[in-house]
């Protein structure tokens, strides 16, 4: 286990260095990822003037978005297309370690480069967060980050079947935008849309931790949300393991 953790740490370090050398590009993708929460902030602040909860929610959502970004279509899918998977399979380590390390490195840089945006947005709209709520949201952010990685990784593995993996992952990103709480906070939707949205995995990846941190989710609703989130993480992990096994079987039967 310590060897795996050490390899993961080295992978984060290597990827961080690699991405630092592409920092100009990195800043553009950070801005790209920040656009939709900021748009939501502008639109819903205009629609519900004086509602500080909505403003707080979107600023926290921006932070959650930057901490949970996943680019496995660029790292994993492009690696498969470039013919790197064969070499990865021959390294005496789980293939996922390298991609997980790169994912974590990217999130780290997103947070670093995105921090000025978060601070600026928070100062401009005047958010009010309660630190107990933020503390309660930390596990949710970690599970959301894991869930989003698992979800994107599974979609990115479609590169083993098709050359359109970017489209597949892009469709998944669209679902996260529409149903995850960016297009509209699920809390302000009417029933049954709200319940349906909260039961789907997309809210667990983005909106749920933001709602917990913003203090718009309370008591038993938080517990229920955690159960849903952990359930989807278990299901997503099982799915990605299954897709990986079938995909690698196909890859090793057809060639790289």
């Amino acid at each position, binding site marked *: 286990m310590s*060897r795996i953790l*050490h*390899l993961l740490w*080295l992978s984060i370090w*290597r*990827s961080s*260095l*690699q991405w*630092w*050398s592409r920092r100009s590009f990195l800043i553009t993708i950070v801005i790209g990822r920040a656009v939709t929460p900021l748009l939501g902030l502008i639109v819903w602040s205009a629609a519900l003037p004086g509602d500080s909860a909505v403003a707080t929610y979107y600023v926290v959502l921006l932070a959650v978005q930057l901490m949970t970004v996943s680019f496995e279509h660029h790292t994993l899918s492009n690696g498969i297309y470039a*013919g*790197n998977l*064969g*070499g*990865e*399979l*021959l*390294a*005496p*380590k789980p293939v996922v370690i390298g991609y997980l390390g790169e994912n974590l490195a990217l999130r780290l840089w997103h947070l670093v480069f995105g921090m000025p945006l978060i601070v600026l947005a928070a100062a401009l709209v005047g958010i009010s967060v309660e630190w107990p709520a933020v503390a309660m949201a930390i596990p949710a952010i970690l599970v959301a980050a894991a869930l989003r990685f698992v979800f994107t990784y599974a979609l990115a593995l479609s590169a083993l079947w098709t050359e359109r993996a970017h489209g597949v992952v892009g469709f998944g990103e669209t679902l996260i935008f529409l149903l995850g709480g960016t297009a509209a906070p699920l809390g302000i939707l009417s029933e049954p849309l709200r319940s349906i949205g909260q039961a789907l995995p997309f809210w667990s990846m983005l909106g749920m931790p933001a709602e917990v941190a913003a203090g718009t989710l309370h008591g038993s609703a938080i517990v229920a949300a955690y159960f849903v989130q952990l359930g989807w993480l278990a299901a997503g992990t099982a799915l990605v393991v299954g897709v990986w096994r079938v995909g690698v*079987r196909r890859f*090793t*039967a*057809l*060639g*790289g």
Partner: protein
Amino acid sequence: MTTLVSVHGLEMTYRAPVRPEGLRAAFRALVHREYRHIAAVADMSFDIAAGEVVGFLGPNGAGKTTTLKILSGILHPTSGDVRVLGFLPSRRRHEFLTQIALVRGSQPIGLPTELTVLDSFRYQQLLYGVRAADYQASIAELTEMLELQPLLDRQVRALSLGERMRAGLALALLYRPRVLFLDEPTLGLDVTAAIALRRFVAAYAARTGATVLLTSHYMADVQSLCRRVVLIDHGRLRYDGGLDALAADLAPYKLLRIALADPVPVSWEDFGTVEESDGGSVTLRVRRDDAAAVTGRLLTQLPVVDLSVTDPPLETVLDRFYRAEAK
């Protein structure tokens, strides 16, 4: 001698979708796909003993890289029994992976290019669990043999192709693999770099007793490293034996190069088939069995000042063989 690589009845068949031309066929293919089975490797068998350096030859698409991928564990064969170091490669067990290396000339280093060569070595040390003492010894040895000292603190992205290949080879050998698969290791290298690489592989194999299976389109690689060659074509094994005997087996003729003292009219067709004539000298193709007799006749009948008898170049022999097979 212990057999380290054992291949028996190896088959690898791909299923490729096919359809006739035209829009109607394209629509029909949406609901009813048809496939053709393509045999990349068919009924191949050979064994390689510990310490052997074997050349794996064949034209493009012959199945060389496919076979190497099967032997290293990237591909799962359709059928047949393959064992490397006693392991089934396709299972990719940790103990197996830490004893083999696949080096591809097309992808010498698959690591982040921002890291220095020494960073990459450190990562490889941890990845393969190389003990500190062995790591230091390997680094010292590989640095000396591959002249890596000026490269150690440089970023991988700043290396030339030849330097990348040297660094990639050193990375692959850091954990001292017992079986080394080299797929076109001199691809794209200049003459000097290619010679250095060949010299290194030969020295490494001699020093460590590693088993090496090498594919290359450059006959110089094969001639300088391999005493045994395995020749495949269309996925089938065509020859397995000594490199010396390959030319005799595939080309039943020798080349006689003759230079005369004075330019006299000669009916060369009486001696053999003219391969080349450049005024001062003539190259004749003569049946292997007749070479001695023809040489005697040339020396007695003509004012010969220089004469050499050689096997045809391996490239020529293989070219003729491939073209004959294609027909």
